């Protein structure tokens, strides 16, 4: 696709009004910002996947017969629910990150075993996962024993009951809460800026440091995030309405 007219227009805009949209006409800035945007989406997606896995495993562990397993999971939930995510991020990156051994990179320098991107993913996944554990557990709790018994009577085995009976019901119950979690997760990825992960906010910061176009970049950032989250919220609402359990709730 030929985008030359857009680049020309942006340069024209800069000459005429002084509004400097470098991220349109300057290919270097454009690539940086695109990479930042993709990184934001990428972090959100990885964290989403990990947090769901953490949630499922945690919900399963919470149903354990061992008291200490349940207590550890409960402690994990309480810790991540009740502290600000920024503090968690700092805690992981600066406190735990500095305790881990360093490894030699290919230039012969010592570098930390896990880089800031990995720490951001770990910290945000655990943050979102803590909420998912509770969400999944309530969802599974919501399925009555009698439904499971009925399925047993019909000759379903345990796995089949889980896949065909419990999960479809539980998932629909969980969906609104899960969506809240996802939307929050996307908003929280901006915090990764604090440990210099090259996501959208960080890249925008770099661009405005180079070209001194703070107002343009800030406005772009705000609009981009609002659009990203807005589209997400709208899609999720649609999905929720489609998946709503008939006769439950309003």
């Amino acid at each position: 696709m030929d985008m030359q007219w857009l680049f020309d227009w942006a340069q024209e805009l800069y000459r005429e009004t002084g509004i400097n949209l470098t991220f349109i006409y300057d290919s270097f800035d454009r690539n940086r910002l695109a990479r930042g945007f993709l990184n934001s989406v990428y972090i959100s997606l990885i964290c989403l996947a990990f947090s769901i896995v953490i949630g499922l495993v945690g919900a399963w562990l919470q149903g354990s017969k061992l008291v200490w397993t349940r207590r550890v999971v409960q402690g994990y939930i309480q810790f991540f629910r009740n502290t600000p995510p920024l503090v968690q991020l700092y805690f992981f990156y600066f406190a735990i990150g500095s305790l881990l051994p360093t490894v030699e990179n290919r230039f012969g320098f010592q570098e930390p075993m896990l880089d800031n991107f990995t720490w951001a993913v770990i910290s945000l996944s655990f943050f979102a996962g803590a909420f998912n554990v509770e969400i999944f557990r309530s969802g599974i709790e919501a399925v009555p024993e009698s439904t499971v018994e009925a399925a047993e009577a019909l000759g379903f085995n345990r796995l089949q009951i889980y896949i065909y009976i419990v999960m479809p019901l539980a998932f629909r119950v969980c969906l609104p809460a899960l969506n809240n979690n996802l939307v929050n997760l996307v908003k929280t990825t901006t915090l990764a800026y604090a440990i210099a992960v090259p996501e959208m906010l960080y890249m925008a910061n770099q661009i405005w440091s180079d070209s001194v176009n703070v107002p343009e970049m800030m406005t772009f950032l705000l609009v981009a995030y609002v659009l990203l989250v807005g589209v997400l919220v709208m899609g999720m609402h649609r999905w929720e309405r489609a998946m709503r359990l008939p006769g439950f709730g309003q």
Partner: protein
Amino acid sequence: MKTPFDHPALRTGGTDLPVLLPAAQRLQQQAERDRLVGGFLPRLTAKHGLWLLAILVLSSGVAAAQSGDARQPAYEVIFKWLPVLLTGFGFNILISFMAMAIGTLVGTSLGLMQISLLLPVRQGSWLVTQFFRNAPWLVLLFYCMFLLPFEFRLGGLVIPFPDWIKATIGLALPVMANVSEIVRGAIASIPSGQWEASESLAFSRRQTLWQIILPQCVKRMLPPWMNLYAILTMATVLASIVGVSEMMTQAGRVLAAEDRPDLLIPIYSFVLLCFFVYCYPIARFTVRLEQRFQVKL
């Protein structure tokens, strides 16, 4: 004669077996509450405070053991820097108070505009609300930090605009949007019979709103409003990223001045403890209010 077919479930077509257990209801309410205030609510119990205190004491002990006898023990260091740290914490509370006040004032009027009879006003305020609800807090904070001037000149009068006021405004924007949603939600939760009844008693729209609807809304708005305050208080820490001298920044500076890695955990757990001591009573009070004002149907 009573037959098995007299069972109420068979007459109404319903069934005694629950389709979903109360956990589903609970989860749904929780999701709605989270959605209203635009974030997850901390659920604090007294046990958390004890844990924090235990971590503080234990890590101070470890720090003392590691540092040998030559250096000050951790609690003395914290005590020495207490004025600095607590001034920072005072900033956190000041920012949260002011952001909440501004956000509530503007947000309430925005929420009332959302039920206006004029379509453009309704749509405009809806758009503003959704915009600021969907923007991440940190981005709004950056926006205000960088784009507000450091002073305003009104004729000869110079109004200084220090960074913490800018941070306050940046945090007030999302609060405003969420308060707007809380107000709209509370008004929508009043049964429409109330509107119709007051109309039949010849109340004007304004009288209905001020004398009948809003007094009932205050009760319903109070718990989510306080929840929002708890979230805001935790979010004031974000101001440290943009360089306001609040507690997190001060803690970092203290650590830099002391240059002792063994103090990392004691000082940060002290920061957490301060937040806990402040937020815990609010959280308890909110739970009490929620139980008392629970909407009975």
